[in-house]
């Protein structure tokens, strides 16, 4: 009867949602995501912009270059470096740095070979990345300008030289659908990336939870009463579906928190600056994302349930689920590789392997143009595997829950299946 399936589901959901671990975990993750969602805005507020680093130089040293630097930063709308002249030698500069008057200072040494002095940026920390790269760019410009001036080029020629090369990447579409613009492509990569991580985390966390709960039920011997009250199949699926709904709820809360924050007006500008536009997300991609998420979840959840059922003690569980954990890890890393090489032969082969296809087929749909039969074949194999593995897992579960003692071997499980006539 379906009512008992529902009872198991409701029980699983109720206990999960009420548990402190779940509540705390969700709140922490939500807070983290809210912070992450506001990160572009925060970077804008806190970062460079208004706060230029004061860079000191010894008065009178390399006046030409210093003037060049001043001109360069003077042209910028938001200069990130402000040059400060300090009277005296390097000792005074050092003193100013120590007092915190300046963020760093420049010293120059003659370099006969290149004819351009060697500059050193002295700062309290060797990792003053932003400032030193900004200075490098500025010095490069000054050097170029100087050489150009020596070569006697016209202003026109100078302008031509400084115009950057233009290279646009356009993805060619062979099917009838419209090709993706660069923005859409960027969003697709972002969505694919997010989806792969979500799937990986969803599978790992929920799978471990399912396995742990089943083992705990066995360990505490509640199982003996449960199996006499409700059929193992319903019990297993009730647990998997219950955990699934909880996981969904958690994801909805988290994504909701993130999206609401991204929609906030103060974030809209920052997002636009980073080229993120939520409206360019392809709807079909979202449908595929949901489908592959579901498929991947249930494929792995049944496996975890089967493994959980054959282990009697929670201490032994970690070792027993290791092979499945490895499978998800392999899938995850192949997918990470595939983000940059979506048409690599490895991806093209692995997209048919059911344990990897939830990661990879989605990736290919998002980033490449797989033929319709590739998608269909992968889907058929995946669905068939879910049914097959679900069926096998239910069988293992049926005998596993009653086997106590040491972890049974494959042979013992098969023997037990025959004995129990399942």
């Amino acid at each position, binding site marked *: 009867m379906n009512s008992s399936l529902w009872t198991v589901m409701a*029980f699983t959901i109720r206990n999960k949602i009420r548990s402190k671990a779940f509540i705390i975990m969700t709140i922490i993750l939500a807070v983290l995501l809210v912070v992450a969602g506001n990160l572009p805005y925060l970077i804008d507020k806190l970062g460079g912009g208004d706060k230029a680093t004061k860079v000191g130089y010894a008065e009178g040293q390399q006046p030409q270059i210093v003037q060049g630097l001043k001109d360069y930063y003077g042209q910028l709308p938001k200069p990130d470096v402000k040059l400060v002249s300090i009277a005296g030698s390097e000792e005074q500069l050092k003193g100013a740095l120590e007092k915190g008057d300046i963020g760093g200072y420049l010293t120059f040494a003659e370099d006969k070979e290149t004819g351009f002095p060697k500059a050193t940026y002295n700062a309290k920390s060797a990792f003053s990345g932003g400032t030193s790269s900004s200075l490098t760019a500025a010095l490069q410009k000054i050097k170029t300008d100087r050489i150009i001036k020596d070569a006697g080029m016209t202003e026109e020629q100078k302008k031509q030289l400084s115009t950057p090369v233009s290279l646009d990447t356009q993805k060619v579409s062979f099917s009838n659908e419209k090709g993706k613009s660069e923005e859409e492509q960027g969003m697709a990569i972002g969505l694919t990336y997010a989806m792969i991580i979500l799937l990986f985390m969803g599978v790992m966390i929920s799978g471990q939870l399912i396995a742990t709960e089943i083992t705990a*039920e066995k360990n505490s011997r509640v199982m003996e009463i449960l199996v006499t*009250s409700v059929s193992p199949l319903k019990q297993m699926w009730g647990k998997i579906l219950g955990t699934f709904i909880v996981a969904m709820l958690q994801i909805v809360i988290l994504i909701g928190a993130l999206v609401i924050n991204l929609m906030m007006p103060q974030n809209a500008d920052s997002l636009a600056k980073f080229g993120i536009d939520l409206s360019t997300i392809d709807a079909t991609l979202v449908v595929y994302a949901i489908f592959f998420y579901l498929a991947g979840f249930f494929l792995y959840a049944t496996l975890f349930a089967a493994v959980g059922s054959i282990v009697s003690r929670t201490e032994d569980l970690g070792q027993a689920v290791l092979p499945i954990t490895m499978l998800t890890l392999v899938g995850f890393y192949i997918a990470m590789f595939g983000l940059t090489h979506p048409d690599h032969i490895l991806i093209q082969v692995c997209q048919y392997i059911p344990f990897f296809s939830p990661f990879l087929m989605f990736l290919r749909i998002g980033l490449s143009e797989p033929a319709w039969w590739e998608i269909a074949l992968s889907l058929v194999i995946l669905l068939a595997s879910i049914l097959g593995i679900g069926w096998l897992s239910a069988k293992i579960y049926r005998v596993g829950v009653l086997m106590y003692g040491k972890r049974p071997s494959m042979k013992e499980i098969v023997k037990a299946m025959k*004995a129990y*006539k399942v």
Partner: protein
Amino acid sequence: MSSLKVNRIIKNYGDKTAVNGLSFEVSEGEIYGLLGANGAGKTTTMRMVLGLILPDEGDIRYLGKPYGQEQLRMLGYLPEERGMYPKIKVSDQIIYLAQLRGMSRKDAEQNLKRWLEKFQVPEYYNKKVEELSKGNQQKIQFIAAVIHNPKILILDEAFSGLDPVNVELLKTTVKELRDAGTSIVFSTHRMEHVEELCRNITIMHKSNPVLQGSIKDIKKKFPQERVVVASDGDITGLESVAGVNGVFRHEHGGYELKVSAPEAGQRILQHALSQGPITRFEIMEPTLNEIFIKTVGENHE
């Protein structure tokens, strides 16, 4: 008609036989004792009765019907190794288990409250199981087995780990259930409980039923071999009475004699009376404990 009828069930695990041709019947309002040493096949038998595993041969009938979903609902089971969800409230898990057996939430709640009142622990309704003492967990476990008013109840070591007061409490409850018409299969190593509660028993040994029938009949089959005699003073020369095989003196006065035949009792009584007044004299019937050890022990060789 018997509530539970087990007919020549056989179960093999690979080449090992776990239960070999066991038959028994439990009628309405009867407690049936299933005895046996560890590993004799009791648990396998109970699992077959519960429908967890199917017998290779033979069949089990519940109120005349074969095993099915409806039958599952009228079974109650108290497993030997106790198990509850430690971190979940008593009410939540008992109601969950009752619902799984087809009870409505409301009925389950009412029943649980009634049972907690009966065991004088109504305050446990909202407690987590891990907060309770072992004995009280056992009470909760017992409630879990009977909450749905099962027609057939299987109790595996129902009283182990309980103090004498709680043993009495549960024993009374089991008797009440029996009087209300529940058929109970009762398995334990405590023979005095079997003697007190069961009408019929099966003693299993190494997968085979070796002794079956009503306790009265079984006892008749075993000779009365013990005589207890006591007086205020000492009784001498008991060893020399014909038919006496051994004499043991009890710590608190009195003698226990092993005899070859019950008739020797009369000679012992006469011998003792000739030395003075007697405060106690009894020809003991064999205890179930002795019968069990004898049956299982003999078969060991």
